[in-house]
């Protein structure tokens, strides 16, 4: 977990320059505190929660939702929303798997998956900016179309037997130490850092850099803060929005690769309702659905709050239904606390 929090600390001296913390920082601080409380609470409740193995499991489970959350955060900062990420994830994963089946090398096929995701995002962006369809409706349409296409292409059947190489991204790990025991069975001494976690870290750092150090990032904030003002100031508002949707789509494609690779099977029905998790992630992390506010570091904390809640409740034997109730309450609670603070 300390890994994924690095972007929060590494966002540069600028974010910690002013002595008075702004509302966003307080929000992230309280979210971080919640996260620590959760870890302590679950560690006390269950022996096996606080172990290296479970920590890595959480990293693995959170990476997909984290990738989706980062893309969602960019779109939410522009004042939009992307309901299509769950379906795009499935379509991209299916696309990758079909390419692999057709004999395309795995790396290239995964690149194709990301391109499929980006293309879906581009359609979203164009429908929002050129046809002036509200983002909620535009991406709702894409959610249905991408899911339908994924199911149609596969005949609703999973694509399996994709080979070992296909599973490497989702199941492999860096620095894994395995020793062959005298009885012939391998013994894992150190399970390694899962590739998906490394991918998440790299993407989070890249996205944070892009949002805070690059012009396009500044324009994303400006567009969500006051679209008309941004336009009058010479910001190409349409292009900025398009960029955010393309990034969201591409990251959904990447997340699709990770997820399908982990299962070594492409499931066209995978990723249902993931968009809501991604939105929850961003909102818990302090992003405002009215635009102009949100950070990658906050979203990462949000992703781990959701990931750890799921994992910890599972460990404690709480049913999946109760988990949904808890996570729903957490989302409302996070927004409520934020609003109370802003009203003051």
């Amino acid at each position, binding site marked *: 977990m300390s890994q994924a929090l690095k972007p929060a600390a590494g966002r540069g001296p600028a974010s910690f320059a002013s002595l008075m913390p702004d509302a966003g920082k307080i929000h992230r601080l309280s979210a971080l505190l919640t996260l620590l409380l959760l870890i302590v609470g679950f560690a006390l409740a269950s022996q096996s929660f606080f172990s290296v193995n479970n920590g890595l499991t959480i990293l693995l489970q959170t990476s997909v939702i984290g990738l989706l959350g980062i893309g969602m955060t960019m779109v939410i900062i522009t004042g939009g929303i992307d309901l299509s990420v769950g379906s795009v994830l499935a379509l991209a994963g299916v696309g990758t798997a079909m390419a692999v089946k057709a004999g395309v090398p795995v790396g290239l096929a995964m690149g194709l998956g990301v391109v499929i995701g980006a293309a879906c995002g581009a359609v979203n962006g164009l429908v929002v900016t050129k046809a002036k369809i509200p983002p909620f409706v535009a991406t709702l349409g894409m959610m249905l179309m991408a899911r339908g296409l994924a199911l149609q292409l596969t005949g609703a059947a999973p694509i399996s037997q994709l080979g070992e190489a296909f599973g490497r991204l989702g199941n492999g790990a860096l620095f894994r130490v395995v020793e062959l025991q005298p009885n012939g069975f391998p013994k894992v001494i150190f399970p390694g850092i899962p590739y998906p976690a490394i991918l998440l870290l790299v993407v989070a750092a890249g996205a944070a850099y892009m949002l805070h150090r690059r012009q396009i990032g500044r324009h994303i904030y400006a567009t969500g*803060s006051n679209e008309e*003002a941004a336009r009058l100031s*010479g910001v190409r508002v349409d292009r900025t929005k398009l960029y955010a949707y393309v990034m969201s789509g591409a990251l959904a494609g990447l997340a699709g690769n990770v997820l399908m690779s982990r299962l070594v099977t492409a499931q066209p029905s995978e990723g249902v309702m993931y968009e809501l998790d991604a939105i929850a992630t961003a909102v818990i992390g302090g992003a405002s659905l009215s635009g102009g506010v949100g950070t990658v570091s906050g979203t990462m904390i949000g992703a781990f709050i959701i990931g750890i809640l799921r994992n910890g409740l599972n460990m404690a034997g709480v049913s999946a239904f109760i988990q949904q109730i808890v996570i729903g309450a957490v989302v409302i609670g996070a927004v409520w606390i934020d609003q109370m603070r802003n009203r003051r």
Partner: protein
Amino acid sequence: MAQTPLVEMIGIEKHFGGVRAVDHVSLDLYPGEVVGVLGHNGAGKSCLMRILAGAMLPSAGEIRVNGTPVTFCDPNEARKAGIETIYQTLALADHLDAPSNLFLGRELKTRFGNLDDTRMLEESRKVLARLNPNFKNLSDPVSSLSGGQRQVIAIARAIYFDTKILIMDEPTAALGPSETAMVADLIRQLQAEGIGILLVSHDMHDVFELCNRVVVMNKGSLVGTHDIDAVTKDDVLSLIVKGELPADWSARNLEAAQ
């Protein structure tokens, strides 16, 4: 006049469906001149200003800058021609701080294409200090600033760059007396530098104190362009309200001429 006008707007029209918001309006502006643009709300003056600022395309007509015909498809192109606008709404992104707003759309960058926030902060400090020496909250989001401070940022943004033509839409509407005086001083200073200013205002006092000329619009049409010395406040009010000068105006002016 032998001098080339900074801006000529010739026969500008803007239609919204059947509504003529701007109906064949011509207007020119010379260096170092302050021209008041007056009229009721909905008379078409804001629309005309938005067309010059590149925020709106005219349905017909021609704009010339320094004698060269131009077409502004977006605000960036107008700004490149040296036309800056201070909007009545100020057009600030509330969640961003003062330097980000000042340089929005024209961010300073380092050699590697990163945002140069340090330099933008320094430059902002300089230009803001010129307008208001007490301006300190440079890293706060502008939503937390007072109306006067926000106005100062909007003005700073318009004068920082190489401005030749400045459009000010009700620049003093949100300001207290001392800040209004500051804006008036600034307008005179810019005027002395040879910048042409179009001042949209409802405040007769400001208009008569600052402007060289007034143009008055009524229901989308231009109903009068007069040197400020040739008219009284009552004459201008009559133009704004009725769209015509009082009946005795020409008689009075003849007398004055004699």
